[in-house]
């Protein structure tokens, strides 16, 4: 695609022009262009309109009312091909099966259907609640129940099914019936259920995996996804709420780790997580005075409140070693591990190998986990960064646009930390060698830059923040560069064939 100039617009009206042709949307209006995946962002409201569009089209084909078609499609789980096939074969059978038959039922013909009203003198006696009521609803099967009972019934059923049937027989309620009974737009809940089903049934659609996000992404070149995954490329998409995720895995963006590495890593973490959780609880003890310390945010440069000892949260070594280029704790120390293992010499060789591999795994899992926890803290910081921006604005008297660097830096940090986190998963599956040495050097650089920016966010004094704007910008720039380098280094490492799954 060379349509570089296209950008996503929120103008949903233009999306549903008359020329929209069933599933194959015209892609001029709102195409989101990404390196390798072409996709479109949808909201649930837009999906609802898509479904309605589908119904309108089918209702023209079948020559039936819109309501009727909605119920048909809901029964067929929105598989319109199957529906048309069955319907063309034997329309009466389909109608009968779905409770939509317009033929007389049980030989009786019930003219007066829909909402019924009664008087105080001659009220309606409802079978369900056994009370006298003034309002009821009657379907064409002749079964009649009071509105209150019908409402309760609908509320109960709406959670379970796509199509609601008469409490007494198999006659289906159309969206019109449901809306009249509920007095509101009750049928839209059913339609929301349908959207869920529609998205799950169609492989080109996927829900954004972020919690509380209802956005949907539709991939336009879905046939390419499998090829991308095979060639270790990651089909990252961004939902309309700005969440990045992998379309293949339906999981948060795991750049630079390829999908197969991610899958293996997640499975491994699941298997071993209980052991690891047991070993690494949320607290660590100060290496000097053994005070329990919980890290509730910020960088990995820790200072013990009690003994003022400065250490690194990751390797628990003194922080002095971590300044400048000497960031070493991302490397797995093979020599050290050998030494540790010598004490267990008399043990079986098998045991040793297992232990070693567990230690190696623990090393990477720890790193991964530390950044996972930090990511959560970063996320909550992103939520409050708007407040900080306002404080900086008010406290120092600079404009909103000038204070935006904070928001940008926060999201840069979040993305970079995610990249760093997943690079540890890649490292775990890599063979020891020259290529990994290079990889780890780049990784150390990235970790360093993450720490640097993270440290800046520890500042709470608004004036200092404003003064350090240049530092923020520089740190972000450096971080972005190193993040890119990390992605490239990963690609190279994988291309060199050092990945062992």
């Amino acid at each position, binding site marked *: 695609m060379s349509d570089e100039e296209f950008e996503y617009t929120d103008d949903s009206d233009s999306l549903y022009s008359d020329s929209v042709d069933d599933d194959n949307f015209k892609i001029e209006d709102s195409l989101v262009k990404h390196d390798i995946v072409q996709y479109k962002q949808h909201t649930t409201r837009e999906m609802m309109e898509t479904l309605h569009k589908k119904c309108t089209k089918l209702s023209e084909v079948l020559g039936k009312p819109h309501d009727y078609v909605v119920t048909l499609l809901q029964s067929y789980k929105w598989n319109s091909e199957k529906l048309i096939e069955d319907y063309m074969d034997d329309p009466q059978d389909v109608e009968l099966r779905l409770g939509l038959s317009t033929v007389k039922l049980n030989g009786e013909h019930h003219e007066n259907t829909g909402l019924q009203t009664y008087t105080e003198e001659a009220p309606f006696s409802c079978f*369900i*609640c*056994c*009370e006298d009521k003034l309002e009821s609803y009657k379907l064409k099967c002749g079964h009649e129940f009071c509105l209150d*009972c019908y409402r*309760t019934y609908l509320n*109960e059923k709406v959670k379970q099914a796509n199509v609601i049937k008469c*409490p*007494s027989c198999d006659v289906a309620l159309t969206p019109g019936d449901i809306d009249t009974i509920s007095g509101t737009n009750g049928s839209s809940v059913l339609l929301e259920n349908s959207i869920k089903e529609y998205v799950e049934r169609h492989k080109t659609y996927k829900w954004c995996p972020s919690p509380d996000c209802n956005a949907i992404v539709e991939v336009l070149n879905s046939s390419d996804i499998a090829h991308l995954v095979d060639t270790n490329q990651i089909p990252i998409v961004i939902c309309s709420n700005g969440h990045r995720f992998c379309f293949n895995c339906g999981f948060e963006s795991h750049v630079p780790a390829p999908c197969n590495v991610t899958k293996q890593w997640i499975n491994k973490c699941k298997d071993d997580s209980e052991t690891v959780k047991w070993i690494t609880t949320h607290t660590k003890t100060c290496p000097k005075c053994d005070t329990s310390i919980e890290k509730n945010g910020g960088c990995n440069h820790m200072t013990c409140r009690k003994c003022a000892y400065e250490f690194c949260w990751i390797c628990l070594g003194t922080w002095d070693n971590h300044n400048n280029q000497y960031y070493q704790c991302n490397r797995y120390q093979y020599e050290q591990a050998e030494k540790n293992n010598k004490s267990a010499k008399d043990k079986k060789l098998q045991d040793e190998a297992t232990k070693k591999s567990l230690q190696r795994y623990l090393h990477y899992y720890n790193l991964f986990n530390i950044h996972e926890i930090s990511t959560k803290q970063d996320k909550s910081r992103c939520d409050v960064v708007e407040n900080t921006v306002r404080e900086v604005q008010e406290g120092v008297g600079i404009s909103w646009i000038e204070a935006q660097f904070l928001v940008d830096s926060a999201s840069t940090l979040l993305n970079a930390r995610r990249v760093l986190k997943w690079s540890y998963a890649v490292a775990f599956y890599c063979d020891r060698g020259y290529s990994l040495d290079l990889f780890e050097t780049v990784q150390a650089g990235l970790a360093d830059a993450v720490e640097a920016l993270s440290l800046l966010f520890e500042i709470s004094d608004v004036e200092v923040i404003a003064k350090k704007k240049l530092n923020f910008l520089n740190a972000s720039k450096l971080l972005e560069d190193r993040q890119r380098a990390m992605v490239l280094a990963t690609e190279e490492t994988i291309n060199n064939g050092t990945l062992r799954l």
Partner: protein
Amino acid sequence: MAARNRILKELRGLEKETLDGINIELTDNIYVLFATISVDGNPLYKDQVYKVKFTITEEYPFTPPACMFVKDIDRGIVSIPIHPHIYTNGHICLDLLGTAWTPVHTIRSILLSLHSFLASNTRSERPPDDSSYFKHAPKNPKDTRFVYHDDTV
């Protein structure tokens, strides 16, 4: 209130028009009632009386009553009917008591189903997962999500 009215009306109906082989036993609480079932037509259950317990909630009739077979040692009811859909602990796997329930069903319709359930059975066996179910079954049969895999019996 709806539940109470409805139960009272159903009980009056059951009193007026009794069912063959079924006796209703009331308790002080109208939300709990028992019924005894005897199925003489089926040699599997000949000369046996079984007891069913109904526990009804305020949401009735929009949700089904919890219904299970129980023992009553004092009165000599010591067994749970052997049936491919009835577990040793008395829980019943019947879609009417779960997904197929609608508010137009009644205690009477449940009893009729159970009666024909027993009358038509020819297999003297427990459900295939009886032993594993028995160990982990919840107290209330409604908390079990049955899979209604077999509608031949």
